[in-house]
């Protein structure tokens, strides 16, 4: 059983959870994810690993309670256990010295960006991180990202913290300033990754995005997570989760993410009716 060691809310919906998982903590690399289930009737959902400590035997997950499973997860407390935890899954980020790496994290996408920033810095890169959120409270893990970066730029939609605007505005500003960027890694809402990729394509800056699609097994068995990358179908679970942002068909991916929108609502309503929340 994987016991929950700590839980902390960043905002009413966004929280981090430290989970006992010594084997995964030892093995995981930046860019990898896990699949969890909260109950015996529960769905399998992928969550990216935000942090881990091999000697203490834990991993950290950062989650936004939006659907049934993530909401159920948000109700668990330290001392409770996850019903199931499998991982680490997916291919680790390819870490090497590129020069300047621009990490772009939007919302809870900042969490998976964190271990990648750490690894890129350790490999000798200059790491510049752009952290974006709708408002100040949604810009998470600022201190950790500062520790993993040479420079941190904060952007909020409403201007309540840092620069007002979108992460793409901050990227544009760096480009306009003539900063040399060798690699962009963007992780966040699909629409953010789409627009970051469109922008960097104009300037021919190699860009990686980390995708979080609907998955079941996470081992390549079901194919539910497939996306079109450069007109080829790829499985996010085993071929990804990172792909060349200039080749990903984001519109198709967003469509596929909406496949069960009605049922997601039904699932939550059903739980409400039963008085489960």
């Amino acid at each position: 059983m994987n016991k929950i060691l700590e839980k902390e809310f960043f905002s009413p919906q966004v929280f981090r959870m430290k989970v006992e998982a010594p084997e995964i903590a030892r093995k995981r690399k930046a860019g990898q994810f896990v699949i969890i289930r909260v109950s015996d009737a529960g769905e399998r959902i992928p969550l990216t690993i935000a942090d881990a400590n091999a000697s203490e035997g834990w991993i950290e997950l950062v989650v936004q309670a939006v659907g049934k499973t993530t909401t159920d997860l948000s109700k668990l407390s330290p001392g409770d256990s996850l019903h199931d935890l499998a991982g680490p899954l997916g291919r680790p980020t390819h870490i090497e010295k590129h020069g300047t790496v621009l990490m772009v994290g939007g919302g809870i996408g900042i969490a998976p960006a964190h271990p990648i920033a750490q690894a890129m810095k350790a490999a000798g890169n200059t790491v510049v991180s752009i952290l974006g959120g709708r408002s100040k409270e949604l810009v998470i893990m600022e201190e950790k990202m500062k520790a993993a970066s040479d420079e941190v730029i904060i952007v909020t939609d409403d201007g309540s913290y840092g620069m007002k605007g979108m992460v793409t505005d901050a990227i544009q500003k760096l480009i306009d300033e003539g900063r040399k960027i060798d690699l962009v890694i963007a992780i966040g809402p699909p629409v953010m990754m789409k627009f970051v990729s469109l922008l960097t394509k104009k300037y021919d800056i190699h860009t990686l995005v980390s995708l979080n699609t609907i998955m079941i097994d996470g081992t390549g068995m079901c194919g539910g997570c497939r996306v079109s990358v450069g007109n080829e179908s790829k499985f996010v679970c085993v071929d990804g989760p990172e792909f060349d942002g200039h080749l990903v068909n984001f519109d198709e991916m967003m469509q596929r993410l909406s496949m069960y929108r009605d049922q997601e609502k039904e699932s939550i309503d059903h739980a409400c009716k039963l008085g489960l929340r």
Partner: protein
Amino acid sequence: MEKKELTNKERLAIPPQKMPEQGPKERIGNVNEVPYGFTEEMAVAEAERCLQCKNAPCIKGCPVEVNIPVFIKFIAERKFREAVAVIKETNVLPAVCGRVCPQEEQCQKPCTVGKSLKSVDKAVQIGKLERFVADWEMNQAGSESPSIKPSTGKKIAVIGCGPAGITVAADCRRAGHEVTIFEALHKPGGVLAYGIPEFRLPKKIVGREVDNLVSMGVELRTNMVIGKIYTIEELMAEGYEAVFVGTGAGLPMFLNIPGENLNGVYSANEYLTRANLMQAYSFPNTDTPIARASNVAVFGGGNVAMDSARTALRLGAKNVYLVYRRSHEEMPARKEEIHHAEEEGVQMNLLQNPVRFIGDDKGWVKAVECLRMELGEPDDSGRRRPVPIKGSEFTIDVDVCIVAIGNASNPLIPHTTPDIQTNKWGNIIADPETLKTTKKGVFAGGDIVLGAATVILAMGQGRKAAQAINEYLATGAW
């Protein structure tokens, strides 16, 4: 009361017993198993049809060589416990095999009774008898665990808790080894859990077989994706002296035609996994959704295609079209499955092949365009090759499509174990008799070696592998 021995003529005169089953209209409204099973009287009558041939052609037809005439004789004598014990000498999953084995291609095919009556359909129904005694045993209190030899202190890792892995685990544990099964999913059973539907193989049967393994002292670790959490090399460094890879053929093939990533287009693996493993048929009482559709097209002609089509009916589809590019005769599915599917109202769209999926403005599949086919010369498989008829395009209105055209082998283990050789299809190369791979101490069997095959062939390989593993651990000779 002394019972007179029947003559062969009298035995041949006993009609094949018909197993009662749920009617087609009733059963598409539930997920319960279709055939109810034999009563004791039926089983005994069926068993009396067996001629007890000295040369026992049926045994040669069985991949795990169950001593068929002996167990059937015990049934005829109402010695059911003895009957099941005979089966279990060579087959750890009788309740599963009695249900899903293609007996008409195996043990029942060479049956003398069938041959005498000039129809394999009239052979002794060995599979149904196997199911009967296995179910009988399950309903008895305190079934016996097989005897286990004193501990050898040697550790074996079995990767994948499907039919091959379960067989290896049981046979190696009996020899006194410490066996750990590593299963990637949260539930054991492999294809028996995620693939084969409840109405064909109730999950409580699979659960019970796995419980038996655990009570024999086999350690089961779920949620362990080997290749990721540990490589095979790392397992061996942890003290596992032999490793069996039985990870299955888990990589779905797609049609590679336009529109295949539209919403509503599933691989059969995904569709069946949602329905079976994740119990989406109980949604919203369970959390995993599945698209509920009125018009469903399934592509393929094998057992998995039949399972998908019949699952779609149970999920409320009004029209289910099974689109197959050859004719009825070439369908690789079991006759019984095709019959059940047709009975339930699956519409057979034969000699048709999909060429593209058409989506609506929300990205959801709304139609599939197909071409009509005709049969040409036989191809490499010996079946007549389907050839498209030019200009025969037409569309079928659908809201869900299921692609059931087979599986390639899952690359997770081969990719992380470079010294295990694979063939051009990605299947692990293993010696057909010992199931030894190219890496010392590592054996492999089931679909990862065979490509997509059957439960019983996987078990047959598991038996051979277990024997070879036990030998290897005793002698150290590779």
